[in-house]
């Protein structure tokens, strides 16, 4: 599944459509501590978290995540949004808890 296909699936709401529509969503990754995500998230991961700030975006760029999904209704703050727009990072949102949201995508990726 590509990022574009994930967006079109309507599973999650869209906060920022990035510049990577053809990027393959390869894996599901869930973590809220940036220090862990920084070293553990693998390239192509869809990253499920509640941390919506500019550092989340930077870590997603660093680890080459395909997209970020902000769960539990967590918001992306203003500087985070600007950073996502500048860096072309796809950020999606859902009211679901992290586990349920991640499981939903995991099932789709099977």
């Amino acid at each position: 599944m590509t990022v574009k296909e994930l967006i079109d699936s309507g599973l999650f709401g869209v906060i920022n459509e990035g510049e990577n529509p053809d990027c393959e969503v390869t894996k599901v990754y869930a973590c809220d501590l940036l220090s862990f995500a920084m070293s553990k998230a693998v390239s192509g991961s869809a990253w499920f978290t509640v941390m919506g700030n500019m550092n989340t975006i930077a870590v997603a760029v660093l680890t080459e995540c395909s997209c970020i999904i902000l769960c539990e209704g967590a918001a992306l703050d203003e500087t985070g949004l600007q950073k996502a727009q500048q860096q072309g990072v796809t950020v999606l949102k859902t009211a679901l808890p992290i586990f349920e949201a991640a499981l939903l995508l995991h099932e789709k990726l099977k």
Partner: protein
Amino acid sequence: MKLYYDLHIHSCLSPCGDDDMLPSNIVGMAMLKGLDVIAVTDHCSCKNCPAVKALAENYGIVALFGMELTTSEEVHVLCLFDELEKAMSFGEYVSTKYLPVQNEPEIFGRQQIADEDDNIIGEEQTLLINATQIDFDEVFDLCERYGGVMIPAHIDKNANSLLANLGFIPNDSKFTCVELKHKGYYEELCKKHPYLKKCNVISDSDAHYLGDINERIHYIEAAERTAKSVISALKGKNI
């Protein structure tokens, strides 16, 4: 006496701090705004504090020295000292607890060390916004050991704060001062967390851009216009 303050300002050493946040610009702006006391608190480093000290002395502003420490739980805590040497020793210790991740300036931003004349004299290589290997429950004793005060930062924010990341105030806490982004939340927070009733409350700008530095709004009641008196005021209940 009333001392108007801003004790949480990021310089160009913080990757997220604007490149214009040179120590000279920060101290100059603080003077223009009529602040009495400031602290430049970069993420996990005090390396721009020497320049701040020199400038503050020239401008006649009181400076505290320290950093915004990121604990292993990614809770942000201001660690403030009345003397540069104490802060620098504390900074040395914290640097032994860094996670070994290098900064990538094009992604996170530059981490520049400046002198008082705006010369860039170095660049920190380790990523400073990362967590350290220091747990929240270690911070109070650590600050005491180096002669400073710990202040959990912006505890009303929903990221990187004591209440967001830990979700509660540990029973064995010893800190006596907290920082709120919005002081108006204090009463409400006290109902949920009665511990806060015995704390001093400060409110800082957390500025990453020059224009965001506090105006002359928030003040501390201190016995004298000295760094030592301000630290005492932060520790005692007289704000």
